[in-house]
């Protein structure tokens, strides 16, 4: 009996020692390397009083307080960090802005139409910072990548060309109406089961309107849904540079992707040139997978559904909300849904990984991603 107790205590001691040893390895090693830059950034804030975007980004990056959600949303932030010669590591940001609120993240990622509204406004769920916060805009910095699009699989597009055109025609009509009447569109979205308050929905609609109607350089867009060649190219180039894939086969494929592998403009061109009458629809019951929860980010589809635009072209459309870890690329690829909304960079990564997806319209013409900071933190 005594022997066993001795053994037991011995085993416990040994395990505690090994763990503390291992723990020591993990925590001690990075500490000195990270302390040095932090001290220097403190010194910098005292002397130079940074004000330009570069100064702010460098200060935040040196302190290790740049945040992003990761999971394919991080490439623009990585590109910006690289542009100013910083390491591309960032903190994993939760889907709320609490980390920004308590300063554990001083330069936080935010979508203009969602998180930025929550940070600035003081309606229900907002943090009410108002004008005491400022942003670094990816479009101004030249590292913008295109976001929300409409995509399907190459096989589906080839087998159902008329259905694709009809769906695009009605969806673009919905987006046009929504962009002209954002307030009404926001109410429609709210009624379709919203995850956020009515006030925030209204704010979101007004911001999404800007993304749909203005391009990366701030000019007005003539055709909603247009796949601008230069913007697509910039997105693809940045994607090739910053999407890091462990799988060598996928990485090789990524480096050889061209625009023709990821988008086809003919469906949209023919849809918009048509009179809105589509005969011989190959499939009348179709579904579209959203990238996120039902909200004004996707108001065009909800408007098209509510106003009966889909019915007019003979389609019975189901809108499938996303959220969390639902991967819209996988859902479309395996045929669970027919169409999807995703960011162009995600589509590029999916095609590199072996999917055969095809973008058929580009709804957002500029990047909605900004890095938000409190002015007080970078005086």
């Amino acid at each position, binding site marked *: *009996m005594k*022997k*066993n*107790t001795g*053994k*037991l205590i011995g*085993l*416990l001691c040994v*395990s*505690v020692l*090994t*763990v503390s040893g*291992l*723990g020591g*390895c*993990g*925590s001690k090693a*990075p*500490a000195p390397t*990270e302390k040095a830059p*932090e001290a220097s950034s403190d010194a910098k804030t005292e002397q130079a009083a940074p004000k330009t975007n570069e100064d702010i980004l460098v200060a935040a990056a040196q302190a*290790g307080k740049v945040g992003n959600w*990761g*999971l*394919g949303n991080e490439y623009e932030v990585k590109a910006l960090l690289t542009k100013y010669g910083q390491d591309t*590591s*960032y*903190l*994993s940001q*939760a889907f709320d802005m*609490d*980390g920004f609120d*308590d300063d*554990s993240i001083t330069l936080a990622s935010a979508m203009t139409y969602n998180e930025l509204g929550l940070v600035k406004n003081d309606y229900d769920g907002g943090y009410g910072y108002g004008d005491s916060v400022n942003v670094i805009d990816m479009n101004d910095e030249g590292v913008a990548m295109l976001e929300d699009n409409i995509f399907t699989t190459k096989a589906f597009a080839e087998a159902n060309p008329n259905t694709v055109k009809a769906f695009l025609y009605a969806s673009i009509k919905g987006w046009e109406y929504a962009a002209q009447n954002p307030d009404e569109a926001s109410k429609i979205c709210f009624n379709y089961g919203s995850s956020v308050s009515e006030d925030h929905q209204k704010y979101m609609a007004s911001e999404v309107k800007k993304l749909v109607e203005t391009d990366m350089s701030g000019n007005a867009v003539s055709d909603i849904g247009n796949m601008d060649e230069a913007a697509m190219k910039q997105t693809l180039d940045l994607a090739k540079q910053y*999407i890091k*894939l*462990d*799988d*060598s*086969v*996928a990485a090789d494929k990524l480096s050889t992707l061209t625009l023709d592998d990821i988008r086809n403009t003919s469906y949209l061109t023919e849809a918009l040139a048509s009179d809105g009458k589509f005969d011989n629809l190959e499939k009348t019951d179709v579904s579209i997978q959203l990238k996120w929860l039902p909200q004004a980010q996707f108001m065009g589809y909800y408007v098209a559904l509510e106003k009966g635009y889909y019915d007019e072209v003979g389609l019975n459309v189901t809108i499938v909300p996303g959220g969390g*870890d639902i*991967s819209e*690329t*996988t859902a479309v*690829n*395996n045929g669970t849904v027919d169409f999807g909304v995703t960011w162009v960079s*995600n589509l590029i*990564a*999916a095609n590199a*990984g*072996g*999917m055969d997806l095809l973008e058929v319209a580009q709804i957002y013409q500029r990047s909605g991603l900004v890095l938000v900071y409190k002015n007080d933190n970078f005086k």
Partner: protein
Amino acid sequence: MSRKLKRKKSLWYRIHQNEKVQSAETVLLPLLFGFLFMIMWQTQKLHTLLHTDTFTLPLPSRILTIIADNSDKIMLNVNATVIVTLAGLVAGSLIGYGIAVLAALFPKWGSCGLKIIAAFNAIPIVALAPVMTNWTKDVSNHADIRSMVAKIMVVTIVCIANMSINAYRGLTELKPFSEDLMCSYAASKRVTLIKLRLPNSVPYIFTALKVAVPSSVISALVSEYFAEYIVGVGRQIRENIVLAQYSSAWAYIVVACLIGIIMYAVLMIAQSFMLKKRA
């Protein structure tokens, strides 16, 4: 005579009775099954059987290639996950055992307290992890350290419940009359604890660890999803799946399995050493 004949007839039976053959069988049969399974997987028979494709379920050869190509990066992530798992496991088991000893010494409120602890077992890790991440924000200025603390705390809580309930049984469910015997010796509570209860609880500790080891690996993997600092096998699985990189995701899934299997094997070896003389 008749006995001899019977023996000759059942040669197969006699081979089976041979201890060496038996122990070889326990190793060989699972190995053979695993080998067949891998062949079916590699030759895509498994894909036909499960109605899936090589995109969702990549071939073993491709998965192994990815593991070989990225060994440095994978080791970095494995280190992070293993440190969290072991630290949480040890901390949780020690605390859990301590609680069990207290509960055994003071049975009146002890058993009641254990029921509350058992309720902790029901908290989903996905609910616990973000709470811990928020809670540990002031622990350190370095995101990697405070994330590690948050992850360890999740694993710890999962292990505490497990260990305390099992150890309590080991400390209280004694051999009949042994407690009465100690009473008749007028042994103090302390002596009863050291001489009777603690040794009696050793097999129960291993019962607890057998459950705690796999669940601590899973807790570590899931808590990485919510951690601020991006590192760990679990996080890599999630990143790759969201980016539709199924081959890479599978590579990390295989690595996660290996971590669990190796830790379990180490536990089994430790158990056979510790419990050898008791049998």
